[in-house]
């Protein structure tokens, strides 16, 4: 009996300790109003964030804890798990598509920032590039069923473009100040690259979304936004000749030798290493790469260019807009302080500091005048940017996956553009039928 009593006592003690330990990590929102917790995934920007946090504490007395969770996949899972357990921090970012963003809002996790943005005749709102804000905005009557408003503050802007190595351009006998403007010129350079036994275009096409990004750029160039959106709505099939043209560009790139061998199994980090070490003539990458290249090879001589036009009928479009945004936890007890901090973080001085130290494009228009020259090359093209999160419609993930894997198959010579188009359309019809049911 005594043994039983001892055992029960030990069990009770452990249960109480366990309960205390668990409840200790259960609530991020219960922290004091003098501390704001921010979760993020941006490894390259963490030192700058920590520095800014110190400055903010000195200025206001409010402590800001920037907590880094990387890589981005792990971060994404952490945020979802925290949302399920209602343990999100005061400020956080969301990685994912617009529908994920909408789900977070509908689940009551994100504060509507519209009233703060509109205060003082839209003083905060007017600081941002409209393209950057659009990613965080839901218009009235949106397909996601979210109340109209602005739900996030962009802290930087990104644009995904092509880059070319000026030294290798000289080696190819090309003018380093005149990158190719048409797709035909680009393909011709591919042939020269093959002859000289150099490496052509590198990109993280093993990660799928970047190949999707270039395909979208060309879809906008060849058929225009309206037709792309009509395709997503299901009004135009992927077997349309314009879509076949888009897919054929990838076949042409493969045939010309402008693509590096193995590009479809390449992760973006590897692509960045290759380009930074002067081993590849072209790269398809986002504006964040400037910081990466600076770290890997400060002497790298390169320029920024739009993907060469495949059609002269329409302008070239690039993926871009808000790079990273922060949202305020709607359940946070520190909402007001969190909003004040975001306002401060997106002010001109802090944005200039972030651009200088991290080489990311500022989301604040006023900060543009003080950014490094190579950044301005990207900034010049921000107005040409578009992003699926601003289109108001979303393609089915299964269709996107079929398209992206299909493009990989075209690049490795396994499938024809027509085959990929038919497969994508079949999946589209299946998903549409499922939705109707």
């Amino acid at each position, binding site marked *: 009996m005594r043994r039983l009593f001892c*055992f029960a006592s030990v069990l009770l003690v452990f249960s109480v300790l366990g309960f205390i330990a668990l409840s200790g990590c259960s609530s991020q929102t219960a922290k004091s109003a003098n501390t704001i917790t921010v979760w993020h995934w941006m490894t390259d920007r963490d030192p700058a964030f920590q520095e800014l946090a110190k400055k903010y504490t000195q200025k206001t007395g409010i402590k800001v804890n920037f907590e880094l969770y990387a890589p981005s996949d792990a971060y*994404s899972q952490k945020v979802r798990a925290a949302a399920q357990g209602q343990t999100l921090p005061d400020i956080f970012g969301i990685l994912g598509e617009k*529908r994920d963003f909408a789900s977070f809002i*509908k689940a009551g996790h994100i504060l509507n920032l519209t009233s703060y943005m509109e205060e003082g005749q839209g003083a905060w709102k007017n600081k941002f590039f409209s393209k950057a804000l659009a990613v965080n905005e839901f218009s009235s009557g949106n397909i996601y069923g979210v109340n109209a408003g602005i739900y996030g503050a962009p802290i930087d802007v990104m644009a995904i473009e092509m880059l070319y190595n000026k030294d290798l351009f000289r080696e190819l006998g090309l003018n380093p100040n005149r990158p190719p403007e048409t797709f035909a010129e680009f393909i011709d350079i591919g042939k020269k690259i093959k002859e000289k036994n150099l490496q052509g275009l590198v990109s993280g096409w093993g*990660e799928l979304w970047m190949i999707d990004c270039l395909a979208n750029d060309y879809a906008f160039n060849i058929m225009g936004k309206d037709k792309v959106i009509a395709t997503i709505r299901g009004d135009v099939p992927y077997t349309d000749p314009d879509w076949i043209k888009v897919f054929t560009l990838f076949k042409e790139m493969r045939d010309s030798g402008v693509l590096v061998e193995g590009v*479809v*199994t390449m992760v973006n980090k590897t692509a960045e290493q290759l380009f930074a070490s002067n081993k590849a003539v072209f790269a398809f990458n986002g504006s964040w790469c400037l910081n990466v290249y600076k770290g890997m090879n400060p002497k790298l001589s390169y320029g920024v260019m739009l993907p060469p036009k495949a059609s002269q009928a329409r302008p070239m479009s690039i993926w871009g807009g808000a790079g990273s945004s922060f949202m305020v936890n709607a359940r946070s007890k520190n909402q007001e302080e969190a909003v004040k901090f975001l306002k401060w973080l997106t002010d001109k001085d802090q944005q200039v500091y972030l651009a200088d130290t991290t080489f990311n494009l500022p989301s604040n228009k006023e900060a543009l005048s003080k950014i490094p020259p190579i950044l301005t090359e990207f900034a010049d093209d921000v107005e040409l940017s578009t992003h699926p999160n601003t289109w108001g419609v979303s393609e089915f993930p299964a269709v996107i996956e079929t398209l992206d894997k299909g493009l*990989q198959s075209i690049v490795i010579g396994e499938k024809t553009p027509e085959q990929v188009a038919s497969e994508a359309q079949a999946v589209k019809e*299946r998903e549409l039928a499922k939705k109707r049911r």
Partner: protein
Amino acid sequence: MRIKPTLENYTFVLPAVIIFSIFYIIPFFWVFQLGMYDWDGILPTKTFVGLANFTEIFLHDPSWWQAMWNATYITLIALIFQNALAFLLAWACDREIRAKNFYRVVFFIPPILSEIVVGMVWRFIINDVDGANMVNRLLVSVGLGNFAHNWLSDPKTALTTVALVHCWKGFGWGFLIFLAGLQTIPRELYEAARVDGANAWQAFRKVTVPLMIPVVVLVAILTVLGTMQAFVLIIGLVGGEFAGHTSVPVLRILASMRGSSRFGYACAQGITFGMVLVIISFIQYRFSKRARQIT
């Protein structure tokens, strides 16, 4: 009066039962329950869809079955090559050879390395664009230059290359278990066999093999469970699913959760995958029982 000691005994196993239930049984049923919902993993509301997710997996998701086949292919290679290598090396190290402790340490290094590191190192060894291209150089130097190509970016060789790297990474576990198994065989049995006139091959066949069957089964089950669930190495080597050629079930589950935000469907995939693994393990166990009876 007998109830009290019985109750007392049960109380002692209660913590283990509670912990096991919290971390294994309850999550299993919870995942099974979620598999019957259409849920994005964020919204508080879920739509009950019954067995629709499972029906979709079985009837309308060819990419899932391609992933299952790819995992089976890697597993078959691992079962044959990885375990054969592990057994041979364990058998060699069990004998009186010089520096056997050194070999024991060296053979156990690959399993303790991080999978992502192994993937990237092997990518460097194999690839010609972003690596040292050692394999192709070796082929050229021995006059087999015709076989030199981009192993990881060729759909015909990508999966086999992944499987072979997986074998290199995993054979150390099998080696360790086989070695422990071999060391439990009494030396007297070999001496008795020798006295009875058995040669080395007969001693191996009649003494080592029958006594090692339980160990072989254990290693085989662990190999199947470990290999079917491999995915980090694949990300390190080829960056992902490579147009479906290197897709495996765990990558598909992750794609459903992250890419498609179909948490319910991912749970259904997880349950289906788990059931397949249980069935395979059960078949292996039955097969080993039969093999033991025959030997």
